[in-house]
Each structure stands twice: as C-alpha cells, then as structure tokens.
C-alpha cells in the first residue's frame, strides 16, 4: 500500500518539528484548517517513485481536545472524509520520557490506522542506561515499525523514509482499550478511567520494552535554572536580554530598511521618469511600487525578531521567561506567554502578534493580540520626535532630567500601562468557559537547532508577505487613489491657480513642484475628507491639515511626517525637519492663536499612542484571527480611546 498523505503527531518538545523539517526541508506550505486559527503545516517528501504529503499536526499531549483549536487534531484523525485525513500516522515520542509520551501513542494506535513509532533523542536516553527492546515491543504491537532517531543531527531520518516507502500496516490489531470511542465531552469519568487504564498498561509495558540498568538518575536543578528563575537575577537577566534584543533590532534593522526605502523610492522615480505620463504610470509608481515597498520594509524587523525569539525558544530559555512572568501577567487576564509578544510589539506589533501563536488559551491569546498595538512601536518615533521638538521646550527638570526625553518616556509608559489596563477590561468583557491553565513543560537547556530557527523564520516572513501583504497592497492602492483623485476638475483648477515661474531658479521650480503636490493632496478625496472631519477633530485641537495627515498615516504612522511636509509644501528630508517645523509653528487659527500649542501637540502625541494607525497590523490581526471581526473591533476601540484621551489632554492643557 502506497501512502499519499502522512501526519506527524507527538507531544510538544519531542523534536517532532525537527523531524518534519528533516523530511520536507524548505519544501513546506502553511495553510488553513477550516474554521480554526491553528495553521496547517504540510510539506512534500519525495520518494523513489512517488511523493508523499506530510502534515505536521500541532503538538499535543492527548488527542482529547480541550479547545476548538485542539479539536482539529481529532477531526483530522477520526473523520475519514476530512480533506486532510491521512493514510498513516507517525507518532514522534521523546525516548527519554516514554511513559507520558506513550499515552498519546496508545490513543493513536487504537484509532486503527497504520502507525509508525519514532523514538527521538534515543541516544540521550541510552546515555542514562536505557535500551529499547524492539522485539518485545513488536510482540505487543506487531505492525508498528519503530525507528530510533536523533533529529538534531539527522540520524535515523532515512529509516523513516524507507519505512514510508515500504508501507506499514498496524490495523490488524489488538486494541489497548477495547471499545475505544473518543467523544469530545471533556473530563468525563470515562475519559479519566480510560487514561488511567492506559497508564496502567504503559507501566506494565515499559519494563518489558526498556532494558534499564539500575542507575536511576538523580534529578538535579541546573545552575542555569537557579539563575534564570532567581527573584532578582532572573528578572535582571531577562531585562538584559531584552535590551540586547532591541539594540540589535534597532541598530541592525535600520540598514536594510533604509536600503529598501531608497530602492523602492528610486524605482518609483525611475518609472515616473521613463514611462509615458498617465494613469497607469501613476498607479504603478505611486500606488503599487510604494505599496510593495510598504510590505517589504517590515521584513528586516520581522526576520531579526524571529531570529532572536527562535534562538530563545530553541534553547529552552523562553519557557523560563513564561515561568517567572506568569504570576505578574495573570491579574490582567494575560498569561506568562503574553510577555514576549507584548514586548516584541515595542519594536513592531506585527511580529509581536505573530508570536502569540504559542498562547494556547483562546481568550488570553485574543487579549494579547488586541492590546499589542498599544505598545509604542518604532514607527511612532518619527511622529513623537517631530511633535516633541515642536511643542516641548528643551529644558531640564529637577536639574538633570531632559524634559523632552521625559515626555518621550511618558508616551512609552502610557502605551504599556494602557495595554495592561485594556487587558484588564477585556478580561471582564470577553466571556470564555475555557479555564486558563499554564502547565508548561520546562525543557532542558540545549544549543539551538539552527535549521529549525531559520525554517520558522522563513515561514513567518512568508506568511507576512503572502497573507498580510495582499491586504497591505490593496489598502495602499486605495489610499493612493484617494490621495490622487478629486471630484471633477478640482485638482486641475487648483494647480492652474499656482503661479508657475516662467524662468525661475531651480529653487523656485522646486518650490512650484511642492506647491503642486500640496494642491493635489488638498483637493483630492483624501483632502476633502480631511477638511470634512475638521469639526470632529477641532475639539481635540486639530485643524484640517492634521486631519488629512491622520487619514494618510493610516498606511503607517510615520507617513504623518511626510504628509505634513506635503501639506506645508516643504521637502520631506526625513530627519528633524526644521523647514516643516517653522511652518507648523507659524500656523494660526482664524482667531490668531497658534494651532500647534502645547495642548494640541500633547493631544496629538496621545492620539498616536492610542490610534490604530497601521494597516499592516490590521492585516496581520486578520491573518492570525482568521476573521475581520477582531481587526474591526480593534480599530474602533483604539480610535475611541484615542479620541477620548486626546480630548481630555487637550482640555487639561488649554
């Protein structure tokens, strides 16, 4: 019998993913299981004659589901009509921890499907004096091929492939538990009885199949663990690692990001210059190319962050972070596993939200996703810098603190505190009957398997580009169209009004170009919309010019600065823009009061702390929750929060 489709199943931390990676290499695909948020990872294994699809099922301790997402494993295995129902199963078990691992094996075996057993890390188990007796095992499980592997260094993988090629059949069998009938009902007496019976069976079986020399190893708490969970050093080390991580991301990511920025900028200009002027050229050079650039620009940050997180995960350090942070996060309706996604969001919410996959509790995962964008990300820095330089005087407080720095720090703190408070509110609002549990295995410390780190990094980048990228590109084209077209000949008329220097200097011509750009934006649908919302944003201190920039910066927060430059007809030179600041300072309301007062400036900063001004984040939230409902709720609640908070700040300071 030739297998077409084989599923890998096993406990977490057994090296199942390593085996999957060894079997399929980069030939992997991430897809959907219908109706749930877990991803389906599958890949192709080429054999001598045919190709087999390998599905990597989510790691699990039992096939009894505890949540809708875990239900998927059971559905795939039990329902023969399920599109992902495999022909055979490979159960990956950790050879050094057979008792608990064999529980899943016996459950799977009783499903009456062809099963292969992979004993991973058997060489580590050997070291502690164990030996696996295959003959004794086959006496009880005749049709089950057993392969001993060390996936870390690739030993035994070819034997798995040989067995798949040969085919195997364990369905002519004697069940471990007769009349085995899994129901989705949880914690029924039946289930507990059955599990106890299975353990009894395993306890009787193990002495037969494992030849163990009498040197029961004494378990010792490692020195590293003593350090990592220390009440003082544990947190200090974590803070140190975080600082290093951010340093790395901010210092390293900026080079490729600047490069991507300039490559796409040059490409835009090139297209504009070389192709005949017209709608298509504009669409290409101002819509599609910058849109693609807006997707690609995130890759360095995502890749670097997942490189670091992957290393921390692989070494086993991450589970220690969860262990020491869990107690602190729990009161907010979060989980120790929320810490890393939230802190990653201080660099960029996109990888932060993608990192929430490890949170198995539905409610805790959703809360983490919902509040992650409140953490101040790097895209807010240009906005904060401009506004702080504009309205906050550079002076010392208490003799040594720089006031501008203090304001910047407060904005970061405001984001963090708000994230925690909103979590607290959502904890009460979101109803769930799924009990929050931690129960996490703390694996032994080991060197990272680089293959796994890089494959998961590629997977994340791929998911971002192909799933979120589509939405980002679509939204950027819409935003471009809104900012480029106006009703009737409004834009043309506005441009005609600008006096064209007949034989001006280059400076004059450049100034003319800037003014044309401004006229275009001001009279486009986006500009008109910005003016229309002025009555709404006036109570929080903004004029229509800010209104337009708020709308355009929905693409990404830092676009605010560029839009302001366009509106004030000054060059956008990226860094602290003195020309722009001069013009903004000079801006007056009709009653002569300056627009950029301290109150308005602070109000705008607070607005940017809260508002969901990032389509890329919305796209990734949609990707991770598999529904538009959550990104919509997110944009609404964050918008409301932004408006109310800005209103309060504006009233207090004016």
């Amino acid at each position: 019998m030739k297998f077409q489709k084989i599923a890998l199943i096993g406990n977490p931390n057994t090296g199942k993913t390593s085996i999957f990676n060894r079997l399929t290499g980069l030939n992997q695909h991430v897809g959907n299981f219908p109706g749930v948020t877990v991803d389906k990872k599958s890949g192709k294994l080429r054999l001598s004659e045919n190709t087999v699809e390998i599905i990597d099922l989510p790691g699990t301790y039992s096939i009894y589901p505890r949540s809708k997402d875990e239900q998927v494993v059971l559905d795939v295995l039990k329902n023969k009509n399920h599109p992902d129902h495999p022909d055979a199963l490979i159960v990956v078990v950790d050879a050094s921890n057979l008792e608990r691992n064999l529980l899943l094996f016996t459950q799977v075996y009783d499903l009456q499907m062809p099963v292969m057993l992979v004993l991973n890390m058997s060489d580590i188990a050997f070291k502690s004096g164990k030996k696996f007796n295959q003959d004794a095992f086959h006496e009880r499980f005749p049709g089950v091929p057993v392969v001993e592997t060390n996936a870390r260094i690739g030993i035994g993988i070819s034997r798995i492939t040989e067995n798949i090629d040969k085919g195997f059949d364990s369905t002519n069998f004697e069940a471990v538990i007769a009349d085995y009938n899994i129901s989705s009902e949880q914690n029924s007496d039946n289930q507990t009885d059955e599990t106890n019976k299975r353990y009894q069976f395993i306890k009787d079986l193990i002495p037969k199949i494992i030849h163990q020399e009498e040197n029961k190893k004494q378990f010792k708490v490692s020195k590293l663990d003593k350090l990592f969970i220390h009440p003082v050093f544990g947190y200090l080390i974590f803070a140190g690692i975080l600082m290093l991580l951010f340093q790395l991301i901010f210092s390293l990511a900026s080079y490729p990001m600047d490069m991507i920025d300039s490559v796409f900028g040059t490409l835009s200009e090139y297209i504009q210059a070389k192709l005949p002027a017209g709608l298509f050229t504009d669409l290409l050079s101002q819509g599609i190319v910058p849109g693609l650039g807006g997707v690609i620009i995130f890759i360095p940050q995502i890749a670097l962050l997942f490189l670091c997180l992957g290393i921390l995960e692989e070494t086993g350090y991450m589970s220690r972070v969860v262990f020491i942070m869990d107690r602190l996060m729990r009161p907010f309706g979060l989980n120790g596993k929320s810490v890393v996604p939230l802190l990653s969001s201080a660099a960029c919410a996109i990888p932060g939200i993608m990192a929430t996959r490890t949170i198995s509790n539905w409610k805790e995962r959703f809360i983490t996703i919902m509040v992650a964008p409140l953490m101040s990300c790097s895209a807010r820095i240009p906005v904060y810098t401009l506004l702080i330089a504009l309205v906050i005087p550079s002076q010392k407080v208490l003799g040594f603190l720089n006031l501008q720095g203090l304001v910047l720090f407060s904005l970061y703190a405001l984001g963090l505190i708000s994230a925690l408070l909103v979590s607290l509110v959502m904890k009460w609002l979101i109803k769930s009957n799924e009990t929050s549990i931690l129960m996490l295995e703390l694996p032994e410390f080991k060197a990272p398997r680089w293959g796994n780190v890089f494959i998961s990094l590629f997977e994340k980048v791929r998911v971002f580009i192909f799933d979120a990228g589509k939405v980002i590109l679509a939204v950027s084209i819409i935003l471009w169209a809104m900012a480029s077209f106006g009703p009737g000949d409004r834009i043309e008329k506005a441009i005609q009004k600008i006096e064209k220097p007949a034989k001006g200097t280059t400076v004059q011509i450049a100034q003319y170009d800037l003014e044309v750009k401004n006229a275009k934006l001001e009279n486009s649908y986006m500009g008109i919309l910005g003016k229309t919302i002025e009555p709404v944003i006036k109570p929080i201190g903004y004029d229509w010019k800010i209104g337009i920039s708020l709308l355009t910066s929905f693409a990404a927060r830092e676009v605010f600065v560029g839009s302001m430059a366009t509106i004030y007809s000054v060059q956008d030179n990226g860094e602290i823009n003195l020309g722009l600041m001069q013009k903004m300072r000079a801006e007056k309301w009709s009653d002569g009061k300056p627009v950029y007062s301290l109150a308005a400036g602070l109000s705008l900063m607070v607005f940017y702390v809260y508002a969901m001004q990032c389509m890329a984040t919305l796209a990734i939230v949609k990707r991770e929750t598999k529904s538009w409902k959550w990104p919509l709720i997110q944009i609404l609640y964050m918008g409301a929060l932004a408006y109310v908070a800005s209103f309060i700040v504006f009233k207090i300071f004016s």
Partner: protein
Amino acid sequence: MWYLELFDNVVNLHLYNHSKLSQTLANTALGSKVKVSKLIISDISSKLLEMGLYQGQEVEVLFKAPFGDPIAVNINGYVLSLRLNEASLVEVI
C-alpha cells in the same frame, strides 16, 4: 485589583502551608518527594492526568517562581511547571 489578588495569593499560600486538611502539591515543601494520592475533580483533571500526574506517580518539587507561583516539579524525569491553583488539585502523600 491585581495587587489585592497578589496579596490574596500570599495569604492563601500561607494557609496552604499551614492547613492540616490535606496535603497537595501546592503546599509541598521544596525538595520533598511525594506520591500522587488523588486528583480533585475539576475541569482540568484530565489535563493533569495527561501530563503524567496519575495516582501513584512520584513527584518532586524542584523550584518555585519568584512570587511562589508557579512551581516546577519533576515527574518521571521531565520538568513540569504548574500554577498553585492547578497544583492544589493534586493531593499527595
């Protein structure tokens, strides 16, 4: 509020340590080796069982997180971390 919960927890921990009612994994001293005698019925019983905490299983309390919660135990050679409220559902002797 969260700090009240934290306070509650400290009090509870204190009670756990001094209650003579029943010994559970939650009030077992660091370093001591015990045997699971019973799982108190709850909606996570099956999960506890699946993690290897069946009746008769030997468990050793290895270390605790900074606020005394969660704790880490050695079950048959692997380290499981669990919260105090989860551990308090595991009666031991």
